[in-house]
């Protein structure tokens, strides 16, 4: 592979604390090297531009069965909404809120992203997830299997058998080639097997007789027992309902007293995802209000927590989550079509289209809540930009979210379109916040922070020598930022350059190469555990509808793997 020299750019690398210094970045054989060590590099002139590591998305639904249900059952998401094929890309790009795998890869690359963590993989469906990963070009993917309603997990944690649960977790990560522990509506999705839910952390799971609180604490202990790269990644109980911020605070408090144990530089024990959906006050849709301040006050004061915002982008989109009962609840609110998939012994997902309209008060308050979370944050290395794609909006809106965060004028302009502006201002603090984030802070929220939280900051999210040569260059001059926020949005939508693994992949906002992408997974060595082996054998013999030997992903269905090894036996 050739050498590359990125010259004279304003470099933002929060992992090294570089805040817009003019620096050269060297690339050799797919890795970042000291600029001085290159012999005859090809040069990219980045003068007057912002240079960052390739973007890292901590939470996005891009591959897998429920994403595909969203694609399948919404033909209206394609017609008149898909772009014509780019002559520089090898495949068509179809879809809008739930894009095809090809469009997903290309669009992330155009925005300068290189790593996307699929937020929920039903373990039974892991071959499907990996097939879609194969067809998602350019970006590296990891996928988190869901554990919060898994019968093995419920049974072990009920009896406080952390070691057994850890052995099972290690087995499942290997069986599915998964990345970490995802928890969605702990206990609630199992209750949905009977059409029920767990509405707060003390609401016991039918039959299993364990509370969501016990599940979350048990999984945190399991995660730190194993020392996984990422922490427990939690979608709290009672998503989306007025007054749920108290349940959210109850959930976050479960992490009190736990400290991270790992060799990957991760500092949190709990990641709270799409916090916007969990930070509501009021007791009805009538007096629905923001409680972002209360939630962020707690998060700011506790270092062992990271969050992502789940920003509502005011689009027509497709909601999808392994929170089965919530999707049923949602379809009873908007009466649109509803898909549901309960997965034996593991989880239950639902999919419902949703229109976040600037004419609806609840939607505009949700919009404000997401931005408040980011703007109230005192540590943007622990607060990440997401839209919980596609739940609060498609990931292609990240540039717009960045513009809102960087510019009060951008926020004001959007607020002018609200039908219920006064009531939105009354129910939120958004109008009183003047804070505008900087490019450095955006780099924290979109690459350095997520990479650190995922435990992959030795490879992704930074520009230190030895790391992957994943470099995004944006047409923004920090010394002369555009006064029009639309220019910020434009710059982040289509990066000037993206270098992925040392290959120039995007140039002038167009994909010009499709370098091989990777599947990142975590392989944990644990001591042999006969009981867990027996439990696995028994459940597959009696309760699964597939054979144990056909459940684990066959090696031939894993594509271009990058293994992160964890050894707990030493």
């Amino acid at each position, binding site marked *: 592979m050739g050498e590359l020299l990125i010259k004279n750019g304003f470099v933002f690398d929060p992992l090294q604390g570089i805040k817009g210094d003019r620096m050269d970045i060297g690339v050799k054989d797919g890795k970042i090297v000291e600029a001085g060590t290159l012999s005859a590099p090809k040069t990219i002139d980045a003068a007057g531009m912002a240079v960052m590591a390739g973007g890292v998305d901590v939470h996005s639904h891009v591959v897998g069965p429920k994403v595909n249900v969203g694609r399948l059952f919404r033909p209206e998401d394609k017609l008149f909404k898909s772009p014509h094929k780019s002559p520089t890309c090898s495949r068509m790009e179809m879809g809008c809120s739930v894009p095809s795998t090809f469009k997903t890869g290309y669009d992330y690359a155009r925005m300068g992203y290189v790593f996307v963590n699929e937020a929920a993989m039903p373990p039974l*469906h892991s071959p*499907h997830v990996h097939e879609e990963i194969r067809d998602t070009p350019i970006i590296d993917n990891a996928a988190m299997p869901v554990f919060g309603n898994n019968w093995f997990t419920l049974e072990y944690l009920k009896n406080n058998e952390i070691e057994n649960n850890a052995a099972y977790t290690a087995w499942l990560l290997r069986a599915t080639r998964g990345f970490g522990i995802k928890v969605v509506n702990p206990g609630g999705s199992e209750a949905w097997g009977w059409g029920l839910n767990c509405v707060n952390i003390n609401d016991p799971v039918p039959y299993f007789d364990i509370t969501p609180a016990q599940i979350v604490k048990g999984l945190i202990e399991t995660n730190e027992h194993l020392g996984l790269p990422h922490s427990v990644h939690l979608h709290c109980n009672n998503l989306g309902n007025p007054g749920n911020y108290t349940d959210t605070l109850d959930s976050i408090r479960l992490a009190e007293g736990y400290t991270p144990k790992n060799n990957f530089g991760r500092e949190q024990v709990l990641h709270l995802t799409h916090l916007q959906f969990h930070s509501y006050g009021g007791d009805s849709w009538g007096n629905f209000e923001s409680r972002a301040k209360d939630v962020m006050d707690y998060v700011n004061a506790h270092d062992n927590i990271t969050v992502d915002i789940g920003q509502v982008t005011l689009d027509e989109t497709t909601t999808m989550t392994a929170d089965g009962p919530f999707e049923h609840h949602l379809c009873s609110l908007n009466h649109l079509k*509803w898909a549901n*998939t309960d997965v034996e*012994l593991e989880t239950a997902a639902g999919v419902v289209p949703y229109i976040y309209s600037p004419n609806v008060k609840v939607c505009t308050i949700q919009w404000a809540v997401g931005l408040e979370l980011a703007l109230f944050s005192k540590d943007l290395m622990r607060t990440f930009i997401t839209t919980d794609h596609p739940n609060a909006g498609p990931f292609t809106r990240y540039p717009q979210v960045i513009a809102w965060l960087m510019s009060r004028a951008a926020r004001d302009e959007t607020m002018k379109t609200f039908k219920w502006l006064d009531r939105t201002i009354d129910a939120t603090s958004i109008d009183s916040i003047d804070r505008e984030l900087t490019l450095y802070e955006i780099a924290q929220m979109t690459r350095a922070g997520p990479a650190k939280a995922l435990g992959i900051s030795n490879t992704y999210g930074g520009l230190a020598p030895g790391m992957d040569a994943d470099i995004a260059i944006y047409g923004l001059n920090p010394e002369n930022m555009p006064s029009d926020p639309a220019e910020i949005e434009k710059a982040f939508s289509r990066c000037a350059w993206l270098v992925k693994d040392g290959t120039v992949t995007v140039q002038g906002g167009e994909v010009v190469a499709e370098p091989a992408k990777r599947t990142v997974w975590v392989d944990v060595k644990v001591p042999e555990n006969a009981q867990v082996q027996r439990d696995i054998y028994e459940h597959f013999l009696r309760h699964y509808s597939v054979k144990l030997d*056909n459940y684990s992903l*066959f090696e031939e269905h894993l594509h271009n793997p990058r293994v992160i090894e964890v050894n707990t036996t030493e």
Partner: protein
Amino acid sequence: MPKKVENVGCPYCGVCCDDLVVTVSDDGKKILEVENACAIGNEIFHHATRGKRIQLPRLRQPDGTYKDISYDEAIDYAAKVLYNAKKPLIYGFGSTNCEGMAAAAKVAERAGAVLDNCASICHGSSFLAIFDNGYPSCTLGETKNRADVIVYWGANPAHAHPRHMSRYSIFPRGFFTGKGHKSRKIIVIDPRHTDTAQVADIYLQVKQGHDYDLFNAFRTALRGHEIPAEVAGIKREQILEVAEIMKKARFGTIFYGMGLCHSDGRNHNVDIAISMTRDLNDFTKWTIMAMRGHYNITGPGAVWSWQFGYPYCLDLTKKDIAYMNPGETSSIDLAMRDEVDAFINIGTDAGAHFPIEAVKHLRKHPWITIDPNICMASEISDLHIPVGIVGVEVPGIVYRMDNVPIQYRKVIDPPEGVLSDEEVFERIFKRLGELEAEEAAKGPAKAVPQGIRAEE
């Protein structure tokens, strides 16, 4: 020593049994025994090594006979047909793996073809209902572990999905259903008293073509409103009784078949079935599932949804954007209107399944069949390309009727020299690229394709 291969997936129906044990002869050339499979699945395996298999592509000659040709020649022919056609149709896929479907999609996109699968003449009407109303469903293991009420409506698994009832629905003992059959109520609704109806606790002989009325009556009854003394040939008391059973279930699943999606009402029948499932979820837990036919007919719907966003009837002829409009871009309709000027039949038998008028139109143009066996399609084709049998000679991922991916194995090698579907399409794709490059060097003119029977 004969060798036993365990946990083998069965390439017959959408039940996708993955517990077969296949015994292969010492030399690995003959299948000796198949355990656990139904009679049909059993036959698929034995058939693979019983008699002589087609091992080389065969090209139709002017005198009407077939002549063996090499794979290279066959790939070249197929690529040229696709390249020269204005609107080729690639159809089938019920019986191949997802790898083959992905490769075929690549070819279709490059060639600007219409890409369609057997759902087009089967559960396509279910897709229409799903587009409108959603699909509250579950995996089959959920039904096995939880369901205490099972409804089969317009489906006859006793014949079409022989192990469905024993693996997933009526008979198995699951986690919360330890008493198996004894703990379940079975309701069968069908105009015919089928063999499935024999095992029902309650059988409703709905008047043919009146399924929609009966659903309507159930929905009305579930909401506590009055219904007439008789609806669709069923007495009010029986309707109320069944409505009450469904309402009081802990967990129920409605399995429906072609009796709903291909009798009068079609997608509307499925639509109201989904609506009833939604209604029932206000009281308790209910799910619904289409009894998909072939072992991997769910596959193309999945693969093409992630690749293009549509499950079937994909018009890729514009090459830069995909378009779907069943009725306009569906195989039968295209064929009946004679809009197709080349046809690839893959992993199905359009010769047997399509209306004769459609077949007659398609036959005017080049017709290529890609299939392991001799079938009606292969016998009227211009070119027959033999391939390995998925699940027997070719491994790969298939999707069960509940969208669960099952990893299939191979138990023996394909006959010497025979390629897989995926390899065939990958090579056609490569050849198409070469043709494009050659043509680009020459200039824009395109020849009109000529099937061997163009003069007829």
